[in-house]
């Protein structure tokens, strides 16, 4: 009996990207009210409102309009803010009545590559205390090794 979809059970999502910018600037892009609205969301989506109480335990709420005109609002709580290296927050879309749906935990890490930054976004679909602790320990050393590797590797043409 083959069930490849069962990997969804422990589903976590990881996206990495190297940006041609120092991490202080990149961190500001994620945390500064003026900047976030300029890039957040899929192509064609426009941020229509954004409120942030940017401190550990503070909440945020943002709405964006799709190209079709529908409004999508999201909200969450900041769990960890370690400038300029890590940002952890909860993330839930609101339904049409404004009630938050399933909550996920997003961890964004910024690794220093000199003039560039390795951004790693990790989204835990299901939160368990043990997993968050585990991934954070493993994550830091993994990022450090990767950052070292990239720093010594040839980054021309990037």
């Amino acid at each position, binding site marked *: 009996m083959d069930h490849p*979809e069962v990997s969804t059970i*422990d589903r976590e*999502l990881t*996206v990495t990207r190297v940006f041609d910018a120092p991490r202080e600037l990149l961190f500001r*892009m994620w945390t500064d009210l003026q900047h976030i609205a300029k*890039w957040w*969301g899929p*192509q064609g989506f426009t941020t229509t409102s954004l409120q942030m109480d940017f401190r550990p335990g503070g909440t945020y709420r943002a709405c964006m309009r799709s190209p079709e005109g529908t409004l999508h609002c999201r909200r969450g709580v900041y769990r960890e803010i370690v400038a300029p290296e890590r940002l952890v927050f909860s993330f839930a879309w609101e339904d049409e009545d404004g009630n938050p749906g*399933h909550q996920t935990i997003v961890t964004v890490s910024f690794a220093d590559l000199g003039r560039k930054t390795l951004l790693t*976004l990790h989204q835990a679909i299901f939160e368990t205390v043990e997993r968050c602790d585990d991934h954070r320990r493993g994550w830091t050393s993994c990022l450090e090794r990767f950052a070292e590797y990239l720093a010594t590797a040839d980054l021309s043409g990037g």
Partner: protein
Amino acid sequence: MSPDRLSTTLSALADPTRRAILARLAAGEATVTELAEPFAMSLPGISKHLKVLERARLIARGRTAQWRPCRLEAAALKEVADWVERYRRHWEESLDRLDQYLKDVQAAETQGRDPGHE
């Protein structure tokens, strides 16, 4: 796929015991007794979890008199997988836009720089 059905599925999956039950069923059908074995849990305790999984259509239970084996139903899991992939696209596209925005910001800073200053 209705948002309500996805919420039901996600709530069902939010419990680590239920996820472990599904992982076990991925290896094949099992009875309630077999499923209860790895956990320090009573049969009524496991049955409660199975009811949640059944309501979310993540498992199906056989009708054979005493036995009623449980088996995994893939369709609901696939919906969750699709939902996770939509999140991935959301992030990838956002990071594409961030990349472009950064370039615009840095280009503007370069142009604004006073050549006499350096």
